[in-house]
């Protein structure tokens, strides 16, 4: 009887019996409505707690994504704590204060260096965001369990930040041609430093794998840009009888075509890049294979665009209604009431709240349509070949760093 039970306590199958490597599927069971509920409730509480609740909202979102992602029928488990996020953020603020003081001092005391100081600050922020992203990744990986085993990350966040920082001028100098090399290099650093339990991932990706799609799209867009440029010079805008300039028919058509191609190129490239890079990852004898279909990614962006148009229309209607009602004096009494406390403050408060609400609505729409959609596409396009080879992995390492992600949070890098 014992032989029928798979598991560490059963004896391994005899070596002479040929076993077919089993493939583990990945699926995502999360519902958009459930996420919407989490987000809206979270935003209200965040507002009510002056921003404090956002650390708990982040944790809830992650639990939602993790627990609904089934890898070979077992969900991921997120074990991170909100308090660690809060403490990390507090520490990051402490780190930022002297930077602010310095920049403020320089901008007032030596105004000729102010622009330089701001440039240095933003350069510093960019550098630090690489550091923060890598450190945040470690925080998330070491708080992710699958089959009871913790993920982990070796490597140095400083080295990652330096790599990322120095690739930028290279990409700029080569007019973007070095981009696939940069992407591959950063993927390699991230994934060859990723561990599952005591087993290290191996990344075998090559920049060449991205060459065809990247340079192909690069060339097509370049040619189209040249045609549009040429058309605008050789075929200048005609004018109507009353002198209004009208773009020539051919020029307008080419512009529309090139914009459309550019819009399609981005999701196409994203899907190819993710598929190629993530399919280059193996863990021992097991191998990750990802096929992210570009057309679904395009469909999601279209879907988001449509919903955004609807949302914008609704917002304008609401705004128009408010203005009309206010003009008709229905709010005169309300304004009077506010003015007892200071009319200015009431109005600014209303503007801040209105602004936050609008930004939140768009962010929510983005997350519901594209954030979740992207995660689902990635998950459902992935499978693990020879998944049973993972069964011999042993637990290793602990949660690290203890205080989490503060810098990443402060710099707003690292999603999910």
């Amino acid at each position, binding site marked *: *009887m*014992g032989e*029928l*039970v798979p*598991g*560490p*306590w*059963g004896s391994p199958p005899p070596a002479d019996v040929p076993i077919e490597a089993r493939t583990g599927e990945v699926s995502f069971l999360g519902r958009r409505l459930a996420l919407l509920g989490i987000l809206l409730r979270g935003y209200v509480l965040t507002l*009510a*707690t*002056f*921003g*404090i*609740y956002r650390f*708990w909202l982040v944790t809830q979102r992650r639990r939602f994504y993790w*627990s*609904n992602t089934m890898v070979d029928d*077992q*969900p991921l*488990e997120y*074990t991170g704590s*909100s*308090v660690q996020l*809060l403490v990390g953020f507090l520490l*990051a*603020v402490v780190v*930022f204060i002297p930077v*602010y003081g310095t920049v*403020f001092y320089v901008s*007032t*005391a030596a*105004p000729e260096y*102010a622009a330089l100081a701001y440039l240095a600050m933003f350069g510093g922020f960019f550098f630090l965001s690489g550091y923060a992203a890598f450190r945040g990744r470690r925080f998330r990986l070491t708080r992710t*369990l699958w*089959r*009871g*085993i*913790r993920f982990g990350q070796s490597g140095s966040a400083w080295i990652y930040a330096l790599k990322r920082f120095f690739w930028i001028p290279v990409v700029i100098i080569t007019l973007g041609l070095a981009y696939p090399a940069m992407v591959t290099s950063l993927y390699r650093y991230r994934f060859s430093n990723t561990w599952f*339990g005591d087993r290290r991932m191996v990344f075998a990706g090559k920049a060449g794998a991205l060459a065809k799609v990247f340079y192909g799209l690069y060339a097509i867009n370049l040619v189209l840009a040249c045609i549009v440029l040429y058309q605008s010079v050789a075929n200048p805008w005609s004018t109507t009888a009353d002198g209004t300039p009208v773009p020539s028919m051919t020029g307008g058509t080419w512009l529309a075509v090139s914009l459309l191609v550019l819009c399609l190129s981005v999701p196409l490239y994203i899907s190819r890049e993710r598929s190629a890079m993530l399919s280059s990852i193996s863990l021992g004898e097991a191998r990750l294979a990802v096929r992210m279909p570009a057309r679904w990614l395009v469909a999601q962006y279209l879907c988001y665009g449509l919903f955004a148009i609807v949302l914008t229309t609704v917002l304008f209607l609401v705004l128009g209604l408010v203005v009309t009602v206010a003009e008709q004096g229905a709010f005169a009494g309300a304004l009077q009431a506010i003015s007892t406390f*200071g*009319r*200015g*403050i009431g*109005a*600014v*408060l209303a*503007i*801040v709240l209105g*602004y*936050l609400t609008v*930004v939140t609505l768009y962010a929510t729409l983005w997350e519901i349509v594209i954030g979740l959609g992207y995660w689902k596409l990635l998950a459902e396009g992935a499978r693990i070949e020879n998944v049973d080879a*993972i069964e*011999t*992995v*042993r*637990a290793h390492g*602990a949660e690290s760093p203890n205080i989490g992600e503060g810098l990443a949070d*402060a*710099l*707003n890098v690292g999603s999910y």
Partner: protein
Amino acid sequence: MRSTSDPIEIAFSAHFQDGNLARLRPIRVRVAGKDAEGALIVIDPANGRELAQWPTADVFTVPSRRDTIRIGREGAPAGARIIVEDPSAVAVVRAALPGLGRKRNADKRRQMGLIGLSSAALVAFVAAYLVGVPLLAGRVVSVISPAWETQVGETVAEQVAEIFEAQGGFEICDPDPDSPGNRALSSFADRVLQGVESPFDVRIAVVRSEVANAIALPGGRIYYFSALLDETRTPEEFAGVLAHEIGHVVHRHSMEQLVASAGTGLLVGFVLGDVTGLSVAGALGVMLVDSNFSRRHELEADRFARLAAERMQFDVSGLADLLDRVTGEDAFAEALALLSTHPLTEDRRAALAARTPVPPRVPALTSAQWQAITEMCGGPVPAGAD
């Protein structure tokens, strides 16, 4: 064992991972004993062997998908779990172990308390900041040397000039310091500053602009815009505005604003989570907090103007008349006034009127001085010049 003596046996099917090896195995779990003293006995369904025994007192649930239960155990490896996914098994667990979620609920309550506490702390901090910012900014400014502030003022003046350049040019009306208009301005400033300890020399200039306003820069520069001059009907109104702006200079309000905005930016960034301070909400928030602060400054400058007027025996209520006229002009101006950093004219009129001395009234400027000033930008002579 306690379990063997139990009359009714409660059991369910589940999966088990031990947290040491990345393997999952089907198990049978027997619930033994009463709630807190009992145990979950993990059994290999293939041979009935006991694999593990988890005391009920040590187990807890972890967050999981709806209608699934994941049970962990204190002291066991972090990833050790009894995983219940079968609906009938979930029902059995819920019925047999009603206290299973207790630890997680207690933890939730603790977290709620923490959220409440930290929100309260943040509110207290913000309140303390709002109350303390004039004090703090004042303290910080008092250690800033006037020489540095003058330097800052030069930078701000350059920026103001740049803004004007972008809108069609920056022009100081009547730049000759010895012109009658400029002499009238500086002699008025000297009279206002008599007996007042000012850290700076006050330099007043009339600047051509469509905007009806007057501003005081750090370091003692004051700009009176031509559009406001056109609106100004009497020398008393003009003198009231100037005395008010000189009040800003003497109290170093512009510098305090600069210091306070930097601090506020940091605070608002903290609340919104964007410490880089690049968001619109951040900028608006800074405005929200600082508008309260600048109201105090306006009232302080009004008080300074009132005292100066008492000393010089001119009628300062013209300041409020002028404000009324400028801000009450049209609906658009009113809408802008909602965002204005100035207190409502009604409040200010009351403040200005307080303890207004009995006459004799003397004109704030001689008619020749007022004439010279009104002609500085070559504009029309306003009515009511005496």
